[in-house]
């Protein structure tokens, strides 16, 4: 008896879902869209506003934005859904996830959908630095959306106290070391109460490490994502510089927590910090002193890595849905909306056209710090990314942390990381 009821319920459910499927075929195109939230600010509200605005202009498409957690949680959800056959149509995921998504055969390139000259012009409108992480093998797999880069923040008050020009930030490694030495303070017992410079190294030290390797004119991975160069002398030299800052006592010892770095800055425990442009709004709101935002100091050249998220289109959705996703990505990244997005979140606007809009121009005049990231873009490089990305990244992270905590020498740490990365990437040669 009970079993009968069970079977009947099953049959009824199947019938019902069949009917809904049929009904959906005639309804507007359903566009499921996963997005992560990685910085402060009213992200969800802005996204919902975008979705509504888009639907008003495109009545045939129904956008459903779904907040999916952090970047890591979002890719876990999206890839799990892909493996079970029902991925979202589009999702914002880290630009560095590109190779992983290609390896999983989860996404399709945007080039297929760009049919008109206008579409092609749109795809060419983004900053080159952002496209470096979005293209491989001659195809464009991601469209830049919430992108950031690492910049330097400095405390002008502490600069004045130390007898430095508060309006002139260090621009080279030598100047940085010199300023940091002057900015370091010790109490009577010899304990450091204020560090000159702080570069966080928890969680994703490889990204911050790129603010040292790039100025030292080293690129960690090739464009195809199949080879890394951790044991390059220029890379080891960059790591040595980082380790030496700690040894000299002008940078906090050991692994420095990413999450508490802005707070260290507010508490005047560190006079100069390296962190993402995404923290700009946070620091602007919480720093009780005058601060400056500057480009990352250079050595052999200038430069910093980009970061953040791109739009991807998933393979297992219908062609109509993919078309709709393309339309949505294009709509959201139009200059006016990119400008609005940048002002509300602190992310870098993704195209020159966005910075040319009157709204963003005015914002930049009132708050010039917001333009530093843009000015740094011409010298910025792609965020480190390879095939088997998270695994190779972990090898590098472990090596960096080993060197920073003193368990390995920089040379040893980078050689070990190289060996591990070569082993992981052997099948991609």
């Amino acid at each position, binding site marked *: 008896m009970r079993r009968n009821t069970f079977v009947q319920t099953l049959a009824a459910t199947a019938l019902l879902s069949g009917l809904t499927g049929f009904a959906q075929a005639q309804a507007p195109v359903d566009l499921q869209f996963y997005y992560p939230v990685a910085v402060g600010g009213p992200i969800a509200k802005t996204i919902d506003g975008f979705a509504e605005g888009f639907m008003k202009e495109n009545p045939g498409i129904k956008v459903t934005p779904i907040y999916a957690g952090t970047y890591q949680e979002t890719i876990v959800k999206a890839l799990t859904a892909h493996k079970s056959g029902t991925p979202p149509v589009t999702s914002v995921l880290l630009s560095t996830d590109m190779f992983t998504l290609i390896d*999983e055969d989860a996404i399709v390139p945007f080039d297929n959908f760009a049919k008109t000259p206008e579409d092609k012009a749109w795809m060419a409108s983004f900053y080159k630095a952002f496209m470096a992480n979005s293209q491989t093998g001659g195809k464009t797999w991601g469209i830049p959306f919430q992108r950031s880069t690492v910049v330097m923040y400095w405390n002008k008050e502490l600069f004045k106290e130390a007898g430095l020009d508060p309006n002139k930030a260090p621009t080279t490694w030598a100047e940085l070391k010199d300023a940091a030495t002057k900015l370091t303070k010790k109490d009577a017992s010899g304990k450091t109460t204020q560090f000159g410079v702080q570069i966080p190294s928890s*969680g994703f030290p490889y990204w911050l490490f790129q603010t040292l390797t790039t100025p030292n004119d080293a690129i960690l991975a090739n464009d195809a994502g199949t080879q890394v160069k951790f044991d390059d002398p220029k890379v080891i030299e960059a790591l040595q510089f980082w380790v030496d800052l700690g040894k000299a006592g002008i940078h906090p010892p050991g692994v420095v927590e990413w999450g508490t770095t802005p707070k260290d800055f507010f508490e005047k425990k560190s006079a100069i910090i390296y962190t993402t442009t995404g923290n700009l709004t946070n620091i602007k709101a919480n720093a009780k002193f005058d601060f400056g935002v500057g480009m990352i100091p250079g050595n052999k050249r200038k430069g910093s890595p980009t970061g953040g998220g791109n739009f991807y289109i998933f393979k297992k959705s219908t062609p109509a849905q993919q078309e709709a996703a393309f339309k949505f990505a294009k709509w959201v990244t139009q200059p006016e909306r990119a400008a609005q997005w940048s002002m509300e979140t602190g992310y870098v606007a993704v195209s020159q056209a966005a910075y040319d809009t009157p709204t963003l121009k005015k914002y930049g005049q009132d708050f010039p710090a917001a333009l530093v990231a843009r000015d740094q873009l011409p010298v910025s490089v792609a965020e480190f990314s390879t095939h088997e990305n998270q*695994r190779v990244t972990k090898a590098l992270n472990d090596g960096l942390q080993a060197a920073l905590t003193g368990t390995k020498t920089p040379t040893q740490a980078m050689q070990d990381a190289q060996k591990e990365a070569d082993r992981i990437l052997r099948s991609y040669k």
Partner: protein
Amino acid sequence: MPAMLVLLAFTHWPVIGTLWHSFQSTPKGGRPAVWVGMENYQVMLDDPVFWKALTNNLWFAGATIPLSIGLALTMALWVNERIAGRTFLRMAYFTPTVLPMIAVANIWLFFYTPQYGLLEQVGSALGFGSHNWLGSPSTALGAVTLVAVWKEAGFFMIFYLAALQSLNPSLREAAAIEGASRWYFFRRVQWPLLMPTTLFVLINCVINAFRMVDHLFVLTRGGPDNASTLLLYHLYEVGFSFWDTGYASALTMVIIVVLVGATLLQFFVLDRRVHYR
């Protein structure tokens, strides 16, 4: 019968499925999974991070189990007495259990922060030097262990407290008449009568030692250089960061074997030595 069905669907079947996957390669894009036999287990033997996670986990278990049980028992005996502010104390001890682990970890992150964290402020007031608790390999594991003990002890205290209150008060009166000391009364009367509770707490504690990794995501992410990584955290990384499902299945089997082994040992060996009334 329905309970059995649920167990089959959500426990037994996944275990068998995992065992099956652990003998297969990870399907990638166009390449489907193929039978690779013991290769995933071979990889595990050669994986230094696995061994590091295993040793860390044994240290973690070795420290959290006695510490949280000892602390729980002490707190329970303490708040079982008639003292002023008893309810308040009980509540204070139980609070860590109620808080979500992620929130707790965020609070502790600021306790451990070098220079102005709580530990640092207390330390420098007492004249100790500065230390980066989560950022140096020698103290990171200890620091995350402490958070786990702090989180767990209050929960186990509740079980001990309930057990203590169900003890017959005439036992205490009899002991008082006999002139037994408090320590003697605890050792010969309370402790043996609490054994069933201790067994229950012990099983939970062992499971928790292999299950509690939430705080790692906030505090150290297994770092620096894997100094504080635990088995389940490593498994999460392999499964959901590296997407190596074959190897992740093999790691899961190891955790299952460890936990089933521990449970069987407790049920069949310790259980005989516990007095139930």
